[in-house]
């Protein structure tokens, strides 16, 4: 198809598509007038039923916990897919690989990176631990922890990053994170309840320990997402590895 024909087909189909979408949104409630009832029910019962103060986390890791398990496995499968596709290069001859010479780094960049790396990792863990109470949770904390290790690459290059993100260590940890989510859910079955029932002591709302399994699942997701990001960024960084 030529470029001109492509634009014409697009232009012709855009008009009905836009009309269809506008017809669709015209049936929604006016902005700012959410009618309920699901959100209002969660807001009303979340505190006394689950002792959690962040309702979005309570929905994700408890009321809708089964869906979030699927979400975690989407991440898992995606990381496996990235590794499978990119590792194919190891079978090829190395002359076709893009190489980029390791550039000199200013001392200030190196020092600042190694100061920031532990701080950002601790901040990510804090985000996950306080998921039931404040904005945050396992996914957000995991994304922060997983990408914090890019500071090692920024500060001193491939070797430092490879030393931290050793695949032999990170891969089992990722699998453990994925397993822990199902494991926490399965314990409920052995206790005679339904899958992913909140069976842990609920603690006090607003404290670090609150929400029962919400808290535990946040840790599992932190592990899975953090190591997943570390693996995926590591695979992409290997693409521009300097020649040995």
């Amino acid at each position, binding site marked *: *198809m030529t*470029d001109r024909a492509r*634009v014409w087909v*697009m232009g012709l189909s*855009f008009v009905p*598509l*836009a009309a269809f*979408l*506008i017809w669709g*949104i*015209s049936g*929604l*409630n*006016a*902005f*700012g*007038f*959410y009618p*309920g009832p*699901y*959100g*209002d029910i*969660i*807001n009303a019962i*979340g*505190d*006394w039923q689950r002792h959690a*103060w*962040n*309702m*979005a*986390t*309570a*929905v*994700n890791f408890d009321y*809708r916990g089964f*869906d*979030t398990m699927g*979400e975690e496995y*989407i*991440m898992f*499968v*995606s*990381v496996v*897919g*990235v590794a499978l*596709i*990119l590792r194919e*290069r190891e079978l*090829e001859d190395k002359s076709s690989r893009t190489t980029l010479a390791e550039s000199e780094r200013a001392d200030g960049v190196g020092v600042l990176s190694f100061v920031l790396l532990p701080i950002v990792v601790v901040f990510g863990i804090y985000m996950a631990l306080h998921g039931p109470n*404040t*904005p945050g949770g396992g*996914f957000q904390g995991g*994304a922060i922890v997983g990408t914090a290790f890019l500071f090692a690459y920024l500060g001193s290059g491939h070797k430092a990053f490879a030393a931290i993100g050793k695949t032999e260590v990170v891969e089992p940890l990722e699998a453990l994170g994925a397993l822990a989510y199902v494991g926490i859910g399965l314990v409920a079955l052995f206790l005679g309840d339904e899958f992913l029932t909140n069976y842990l002591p609920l603690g006090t*709302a*607003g404290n670090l320990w609150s929400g029962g399994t919400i808290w535990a699942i946040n840790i599992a997701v932190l592990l899975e*997402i953090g190591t997943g990001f570390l693996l*995926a960024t590591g*695979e*992409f960084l290997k693409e521009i590895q300097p020649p040995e």
Partner: protein
Amino acid sequence: MILYLPYAVAVWVFLIGLYGLVTTRNFIHAVLCLSVMQSSTYILLLSIGFRRHAGAPIWSQTTPPGSPSVDPVMHALSLTDIVVGATVMALLLAMTMQVHRKTNSVDPRRARSLQG
């Protein structure tokens, strides 16, 4: 009319991303256009759950449980949406590298098997 503007913004972001996807000449650009299209779903979800003069569905000492709040279900869905978007982007960018390795190009027009 002004009360439907946020939804219209979502439609506009969706269509502008689709326009970029149709006319793209670079796979990386295409992946980013897909990400723009997906951003429209965040706008739509959060707009549906919004409520006037209401805070975030997160309780604290100053906003005790039961304070006026927007819909937490939409926030949870947006989070799922963002995670799925990130994973899809990672996978598509890896595929882009594979295409570049095989054909030495990132132009969708040159990828024979993708020609329509």
